[in-house]
């Protein structure tokens, strides 16, 4: 999958970007990334107050950092050589963060 180094023109999708795989990358990158960033903000907003930070401040910090999570996560899923495995890991991480935020 990743070894295919044909010099694909800009017209043709490069290796690893055919039909289902491209759809998976886009879905996990954007929708999964959204779940991840929601979980991140909720978790940071819930957990940092346990360390003594004011809750509103924790949320301000989390929202300032949100795009530093979302943008790299999305680009990572769009470019990784192992989209199935890494996409699944991202989704599990998002679910874990959401669950942790709800429990705290």
């Amino acid at each position: 999958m990743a070894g295919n180094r044909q010099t694909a023109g800009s017209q043709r999708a490069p290796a690893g970007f055919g039909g289902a795989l491209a759809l998976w990358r886009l879905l996990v990158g954007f929708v999964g990334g959204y779940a991840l960033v929601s979980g991140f903000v909720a978790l940071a907003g819930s957990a940092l107050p346990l360390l003594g930070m004011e809750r509103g401040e924790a949320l301000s910090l989390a929202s300032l950092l949100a795009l530093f999570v979302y943008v790299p996560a999305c680009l990572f899923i769009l470019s990784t050589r192992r989209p199935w495995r890494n996409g699944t890991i991202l989704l599990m991480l998002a679910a874990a963060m959401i669950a942790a935020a709800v429990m705290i």
Partner: protein
Amino acid sequence: MPRISEDFRQAMNWTHTWLGVVLGIVLFAVFWMGTLTIFAPEIDRWMIPETRIAHDGREVSYDRLLAQLPPDAATSDYVNFVVPTERHPTIGVFYRDSQGAFQNLLLDPRTGAPISVTDSHAGSGFIYPFHLSLTIEWQNLGYWIVGLAALAMLLLLVSGIFVHRKIIAELFVFRPQRKPRRATLDLHNLSSLVGLPFYILMPFSGLLIFASLYLPWGMAEPFGGDMDKAEAAISGAYDPGPRTGRPAPIASLDAMKRKAEAMWSETEGAPVKTNILRILNNGDESAVVYFRNTFPEDRVVLSKYVAVLDGQSGAVLQDFVKPPIGEASAWVQGAHFIQFGHWPLRWLYFLGGLGGCVMIATGNLFWLRSREGRLARASLGYRTVEALTIGGVTGIIAATGAFFVANRLIPADAFPVKGARADAEVQVFWLVWLIAFVHAAILRERAWAQQAWAIAVLAIAAVASNAVTTGDHIGVTLAEGEWAVAGMDLLLLITAGIAAWAAIRLAPSPMPERPFDPMPAE
């Protein structure tokens, strides 16, 4: 820097190409309207001539203004005053009437009387909301489209950096005499790199401003799912609860305003002024008065101070000062709002916004140019992107021009219902934009020159119709120092000049079918 693999570069190229093609036109529309929003108050002066009032900085008595409001404001649960400034010389009043509908009035600061104004959404009521939401209100869909475009822009900027190999060199390369495709790419790279920090700041801060809209669950969850509590902690929002039903007169607003400002000035160590004065549950025992320092003249930070005073006793119920991280966030957001009093910086933002428009338009053009040599020119995909690019670039500019002209030419009494005339101006905008897309789909590249001519004609017509309908032609406004109107007219004339020049340059010359020559996109 670690070596970037060819696979990664190809993935970034794919991402850059397709995000750009799919969302480029939305991004252009948001950038175009955002660029105009920088001067929204000046556009308001131009489109609503009755508000061309000189701001003399006089003290306004809000006690007197409140007494002069229509009777149902006296028992309204929401009366909001916007303090006049040099760029907003009228006093804005926004209140909920006895039917529950919001009423919007503009008061003359000299008399306190409501001004009968041209029925127009103008800059603050159409161009600004279009920048935020494309004015698609249903289910906040427009906000989500703009948010997705802003996220895409950040992805485009990062992927764009990886697509290109010679970043520093590209800052110094522009070869307008080369083949159009090469020159387009040069201009795309140049405009992208020159404004890169600005282009990163804009979508980043724009998304941050709407964090609680875009992340409703994540932002509310730490407060047990209660967004009101989150807003109260972050921005000092205050809820006085329901009316008690026991009437009570409101104490002096002016005295409370002085008290709030004295409190803030002591904390800040410099004078801090009120921008927003809001009475909640007016005329009731539960009444409170809310003061906010939204747009300080000499600070980037927004709404650092919020004070809430009891409506009868004037006792301080809440003295909110943004805590450090909240203040840092408010600074980033303030860098997007550009309400500080700094004209050179405002013009720099304007140029940055136009640079963004060039970056987005040339990106789409390059997509087209790098495909036109192949047989793709006849394909549905190519024709769609072509029509969207032409209609999305020259089309939206022409539609904006038509919006201005409609504002001056639709008679004041054309519609019996209040608001209908304002909506008609907006309908002219959408209609002209739609026509531009159809025109581009039919005429293809010949549409560029024709739409550029349309822009030039509409811009001249706007200047002429302002002179005829208001008498404030450029000679008058320059002599009287009415800079908002003069600036708008001058920019329209410059636009007309550039559009006419472009139209002449774009005039279709018999183009031989260019053979395809491969060129890497670097």
